[in-house]
């Protein structure tokens, strides 16, 4: 694909893959990301940011950020990938290029703990309320354990007499 050649000329391209006719993956470094996004937006017609996603590669100690762009004219998607250090997950915001990136970054900050410098709203709670553990979408967060600790053991599959069960619990509470 020609667009890959043009990208290779201008930026450092770490990896590339043509998944379908209309979907290309390009990997780059953190420094090159914003120039590349701006270039894609201004000169290649990838005007729209579809989404930002984050993948936790815990074995390699990395977070992968995927920026998914869409070109309305060429009808093509390009996904720009960048890897950042998992220990110090700091990155730059792109909300000045696309306004909706602000909310995506806010969500990633909440779910993965990635810090986007310059994002005005990233500290605010978007989805979770009063969260008291490590960010839940990280691979080392065990949701089953957390659920059992916080919400109690999973109740038995058949709770035939729920009414009696609860009234027994009342009595137990009173005896205490």
């Amino acid at each position, binding site marked *: 694909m020609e667009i890959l050649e043009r990208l290779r000329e201008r930026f450092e391209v770490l990896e590339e893959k043509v*998944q*379908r006719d*209309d*979907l290309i*993956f390009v990997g780059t470094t953190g420094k090159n990301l914003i120039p590349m996004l701006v270039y894609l937006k201004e000169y290649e017609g990838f*005007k*729209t*940011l*579809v*989404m930002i*996603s*984050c*993948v*936790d*590669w815990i074995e390699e100690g990395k977070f992968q950020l*995927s920026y*998914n762009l*869409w070109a*309305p004219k060429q*009808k093509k*998607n390009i*996904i720009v990938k960048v890897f950042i250090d998992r220990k110090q997950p700091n990155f730059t915001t792109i909300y000045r290029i*696309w*306004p*909706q990136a*602000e*909310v*995506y970054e806010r969500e990633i900050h909440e779910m993965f703990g990635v810090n986007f410098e310059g994002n005005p709203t990233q500290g605010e*709670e*978007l*989805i*979770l*309320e009063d969260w008291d553990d490590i960010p*839940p*979408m990280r*691979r080392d*967060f065990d*949701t*089953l354990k957390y659920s059992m600790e916080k919400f109690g053991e999973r109740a038995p599959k058949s709770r035939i007499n729920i009414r009696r069960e609860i009234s027994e619990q009342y009595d137990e509470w009173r005896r205490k």
Partner: protein
Amino acid sequence: MSKKEVRLFIGPQHPGVTGNMSVEVLLKGDTITWAKTHIGYLHRGFEKLMERRIYIKSFPLVCRICVPEPDTNEENFARALEELGGIDIPERAKWIRTLVLELSRLQMFIMWYGGIAGSMGLSTPVQWGIGDRDYILDLFEELTGGRIYHIYIMPGGVRKDLPEGFEERVLKVMDMIERRLPEYDEIIMENAVVQKRLKGLARIPKEWVDEMGLTGPVARACGFPYDVRKDHPYEAYPYLDFDVITEEGCDAWAMLLVRRREIDLSINLIRQIIDRMPGGEFQVPLPNVLYWRIPPGETYVKSEATRGEFGYYVVSDGSDKPRRVHVNGPSFVHGITLLERLLVGQNIADVAPIMVSLQTCPPEMER
């Protein structure tokens, strides 16, 4: 916030919001000066739960991501897995899938058509719309066994073949709905009060469409012919004969017109599909799904839901569970970025029509 402004929460317990979400607004008189969307009331952590489950066990989960229109999710996820796993599905499966997708689009649009009237207090078409939608749900029940959640589209095809005589019954329901639609038009489209309220309401600047990534009926109401069915054809859509519907006007009235014409289009497409339904197998055998490993790779598949472009970003690391599934619903942009900007300067009375026009669906924002 000055002292003259009143802070008001519209939702989550409020009859006018489109689900369990809330919009916080500052009011000056009757005019909104600032708005903020609060989500997270329905967050179940689907993406985390899918990482703990083998691929086939994720299918009961994905259909619950968008409650009123679950089939898009199943189809998207199945298509992503087929692409990563290198499975080709037979022709008939593609056509059945398209039929299911169009039926589910149609029921959503009919419910929406009543809903936009309901958001302004016209309760008669709401009742009609939900009542008529039930005939399509009956078809779904016959086909899949479930009214709302179908879990019908699986990797490798669909779960079961069409029952005997199903096509005729679909056509019958289509005729019935087509007979009923003029009544709806009379009470909604030709209603002077509806026109007075919707024309010019929530006008979206055209440059926002590309900048914010608006899709679906919202983009099409601004004159941009963005339709995933045409732009990136999937399943049986490349063989179907249809045009992308666009309207000029960028306001709530244009969105209403787009969706009204989409109903006709859906009925038309369903007739085409039933006309040209090929024979043959409806699924290909999969490897043992309990030990099904998908080679490493990542992909992004998308399809056209009623609200816009619905996308699944699936990353596989070669194990029997996905490394990451990111569900990107159109409401994420429409309901947060666009809604917050669009509400500023509007009347408090127009919050519900605007939200319904953008068709925000809370469960797909927060998954």
